[in-house]
């Protein structure tokens, strides 16, 4: 083989960097308080509009979770002058898009079209945002279909995990809501929708963002004519109860029998989007788990092969937040995965990240930033968040500098402040019967729920599953304590057979055969027939099994029970 050219052996140095041309945004405020931001971009004959309101799901009336979501779904189902069908046909005729949605903190109505149809789509957008009529038949249909959608959501393990995390982490804070309930859907009326729309869709609560092949002056004229008469109103408050403070580690297992994996989320309280800790957290999160070169991925997937992907997530919203570590793993390695998660969570707290790691994280965060500006939608997304979270006006300009300014001590400081394994909530969705014994070594406090979210008893091990049996099957080395203070060694060999276990015991006292055995993943109980000096005697054995260790007792017929400890020597 020929010698490889030297230039192939090392990564090449970068070319000179090319400057980012940040788009110029022009901001105007109409007399009714509506803020209008226009970015002229004539590269392509396209336009994107986004009307954003500072009211989100968190502002739903407490008895009507899901109200804003239902409201946004109904905006395109009828206005003063158009039926649902006419709206659908008009959007399609223009080859355009128009849709509305809400998240916890804000609501958006988004439209886009070819520049030719710029005026048509903006007029239609104004119509659905300002003059929806919530026709009774459409309200009724939406209610029915939302209920059916709920059933579909509950079939998704990721939904069940998010729902439980929200419930556990946010307590009385409205972020605890992830979806409506059948009861709240039933209780929603056209009157409540009309009233909620009137209260929240007010001019001074909104920002209209425009990006694309438009002329600022003519767009502003059209905006003035369409939105100029929109009335201002009272602004919604953000006075929500604080999320509960966690003081200990506990687990919440949603039993989803037949689950092909365990969805794991380990959650701590986090930060708000405007926290001064935001940028150090972003860098810490990048080192720990933001992408496929972060520690969690490298450990749980590339080294261990437990999962398709392990990540952290920085969930920073307007009034509260969480920090999470997540992975979907095959059920039998749930316990092993928790061990690796806690190893990594402790490591990022206890050791400073290396110079290389922080440099790599900053390079990642600053490098991917311009990719977001390639599309109009990407740019508008950024501008919406600046407006909805009250970020600095020059946020896009300062973003990369803020990242670069983060130091190693700051990263460790936020890790110690927010990554708190001893207070973490461990949320797992999976086959409960196979999970309890794997979670127990990581916390004694375990609550079980069914997929409807109702608390239930610990699930029984329904059948003799190989995954559960594997924790017991193997060769055990035991030390049995006698009343005289002696320790008698014994070997217990347990084999997993079709519907239970076979096994034998060898010891100085005599040898025995296992007659019966039960095991639920934690507790082992069995009967052993001993041959002692030619006599057959029965003994009862009980043990608690965790992490290849067993503690229990053995009692020979009428004799007092002898305690033993043991460890597995072979699987």
């Amino acid at each position, binding site marked *: 083989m020929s010698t490889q050219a030297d230039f192939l052996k090392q990564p090449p140095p970068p070319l000179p960097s090319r*400057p980012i041309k940040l788009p110029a945004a022009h901001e105007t405020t109409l007399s009714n308080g509506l803020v209008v931001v226009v970015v002229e971009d004539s590269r392509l004959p396209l336009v994107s509009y986004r009307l954003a309101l500072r009211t989100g799901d968190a502002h739903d009336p407490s008895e009507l979770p899901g109200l804003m979501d239902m409201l946004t779904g109904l905006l395109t189902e009828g206005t003063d002058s158009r039926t649902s069908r006419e709206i659908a046909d008009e959007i399609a*005729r223009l080859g355009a898009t128009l849709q509305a949605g809400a998240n916890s903190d804000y609501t958006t109505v988004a439209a886009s079209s070819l520049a030719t149809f710029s005026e048509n789509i903006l007029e239609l957008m104004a119509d659905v945002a300002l003059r929806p009529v919530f026709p009774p038949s459409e309200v009724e249909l939406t209610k029915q279909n939302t209920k059916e959608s709920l059933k579909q959501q509950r079939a998704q393990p990721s939904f069940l995990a998010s729902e439980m995390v929200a419930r556990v982490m946010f307590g009385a804070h409205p972020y605890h809501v992830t979806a409506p309930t059948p009861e709240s859907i039933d209780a929603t009326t056209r009157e409540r929708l009309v009233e909620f729309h009137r209260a929240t869709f007010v001019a001074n609560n909104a920002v209209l963002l425009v990006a694309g092949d438009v002329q600022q002056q003519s767009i502003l004229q059209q905006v003035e004519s369409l939105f100029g008469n929109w009335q201002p109103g009272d602004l919604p408050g953000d006075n929500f109860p604080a999320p509960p403070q966690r003081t200990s580690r506990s687990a919440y297992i949603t039993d989803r029998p037949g689950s092909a994996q365990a969805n794991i989320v380990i959650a701590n309280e986090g930060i708000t989007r405007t926290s001064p800790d935001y940028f150090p957290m972003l860098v810490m999160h990048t080192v720990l788990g933001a992408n496929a070169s972060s520690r969690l991925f490298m450990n749980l997937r590339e080294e261990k092969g437990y999962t398709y992907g392990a990540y952290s997530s920085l969930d920073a919203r307007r009034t509260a937040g969480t920090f999470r570590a997540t992975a979907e793993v095959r059920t039998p390695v749930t316990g092993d995965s928790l061990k690796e998660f806690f190893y990594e969570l402790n490591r990022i707290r206890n050791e400073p990240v290396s110079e290389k790691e922080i440099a790599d994280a900053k390079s990642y965060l600053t490098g991917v930033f311009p990719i977001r500006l390639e599309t109009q939608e990407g740019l508008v997304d950024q501008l919406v968040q600046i407006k909805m979270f009250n970020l600095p006006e020059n946020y896009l300009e300062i973003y990369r500098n803020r990242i670069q300014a983060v130091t190693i001590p700051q990263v460790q400081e936020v890790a110690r402040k927010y990554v708190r394994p001893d207070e973490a909530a461990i949320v797992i969705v999976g086959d409960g019967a196979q999970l309890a014994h794997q979670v127990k070594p990581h916390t004694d406090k375990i609550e079980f729920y069914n997929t409807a979210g109702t608390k239930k008893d610990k699930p029984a091990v329904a059948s003799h599953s190989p995954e559960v049996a594997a924790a017991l099957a193997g060769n055990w080395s035991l030390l049995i304590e006698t009343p005289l203070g002696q320790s008698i060694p014994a070997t217990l060999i347990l084999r997993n057979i079709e519907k239970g276990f076979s096994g034998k015991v060898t010891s100085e006292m005599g040898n025995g055969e296992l007659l019966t055995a039960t095991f639920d993943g934690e507790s082992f109980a069995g009967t052993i027939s001993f041959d002692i000096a030619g006599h057959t005697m029965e003994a009862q054995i009980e043990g608690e099994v965790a992490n290849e260790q067993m503690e229990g007792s053995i009692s020979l017929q009428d004799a007092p029970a002898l305690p033993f400890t043991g460890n597995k020597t072979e699987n």
Partner: protein
Amino acid sequence: MAERLKLSPTPIQQFNLTNGLRVILVEDHAVPVVSVTLYYDVGSRNEKSGRTGFAHLFEHMMFQGSENVPKAAHFQYIFNAGGTMNGTTSTERTNYYETLPASHLPLALWLESDRMRSLKVTQENLDNQREAVKEEKRLRYDNQPYVNAFLRFSELVFKNPANAHSTIGSMEDLDAATIDDVREFFRIYYAPNNAVLTVVGDFDETEARELIEKYFKEIPSQPPPPPVDVSEQPEVVVRRDIFYDVHAPTSAFMLGWKIPPRRTPEFYALSLGAELLFSGDSSRLYQKLVKGDESVVSIQGGIDERRGPSALYIFALPKPGEEVAAIRNQIFDEIRALRTSGPSPAEMEKLKNSLCNDVVRGRQSTMYRAQRLAEYALYDNDPTLFDSELDLYLAITPEQIRDAVERFLDVDNRVVLDVVPAAMAEATSADEVSETATPASPQPPGEPKQPGAPAPQVPSVPPVEPATEAGAAVGGPVSSQLEQPQQPADPPKQTDSGSGPLHT
């Protein structure tokens, strides 16, 4: 539909290296980023029986190290340079792609060339990635409602095993893959003459050409891979079947047809007809069933687009208590109506504007462009179709749509697949499938097939923000920087997303 949108032509530069690597360059200096894709002409269609899922498992191995790049360092080099990356496998091809700050074009070319030249495979890495792929299969297929029914569906439509089996493959076949299989697969398919390299973004053409020559020109070409036979009989394989789904909360059904290959006039006409039937709130089936009859919660459809025989399908979620047979008859009636009267002038106008809108929007992202250009080069040997295919679509007449629906969306030669919650399995009588024309093949439990078809988008809360059309490649970093509070579930979404080494 004669009117033509005025767009400046995409400045496509194409050339071949002496080893047969096809190269496409498009300069665009709007944003200082560059997207690089390598498309290899190998997908699940090339797999032999007993080795299903191999193209995709191999794709994972491409991230496990080469002569000068250690295991998993590919991820690290790209992310640490401020880039995003992934790879995916479909029936048709395997692709690898990255978007980086413009200054890091040499890095991307070095990384892609190193693994094309000198992939290193070890037993340890193969075992590790086999586990990652199994978890991917559990995550995206086995643990999701309705998704495995889509895999089953392909087996009912397609007779030829090259078409019928899934890209994700079976657990059994994944276990059977050996290190020698991996090496042989690499030699046959991962040659420069079996690949297309595309670079779109902020670079200098002369500089890019020099770099590409520097890194790729010494990689030897290989004999052409064995030909693929994807031929099909016109009839579907099984007309009627039931899939018992352990995760489905309610019953659903799928209808499916075998249709001609992509890039044929019939395919164009059918994809436009399909859009009229089921795309969006103005579509005929939405207005008839979700709105008019209020008999289904949602109805959606799609096209499994392939170089060979392709498929068109409809997925419906009936409301509880609704008569499923009646809903199906309504769908067939709508199809009959389309093939009797054809599209209306208003429908033709909407198709035209929607096509133009999609085409213009697709010119924003460098990655989106790089991927489409690569497909046209690999499948059609003509990347200029990126600009010109719109005219081929716009030339389709209402009569062509009517005739294609008449010819290919046959009410008899179709698949009906009922998806029944496993808990209800015993309640479903065997009489239900008495309509079966050909006896249904026994369904291998837990080993359904074919991920090419998009999963149903089950109705959920509306999206937080409308997703960007071409946002797949940049989805990761956007959500990590500015976390969207509601995270939607993550089923496989598009025909061309296949299965990748990472969440996208």
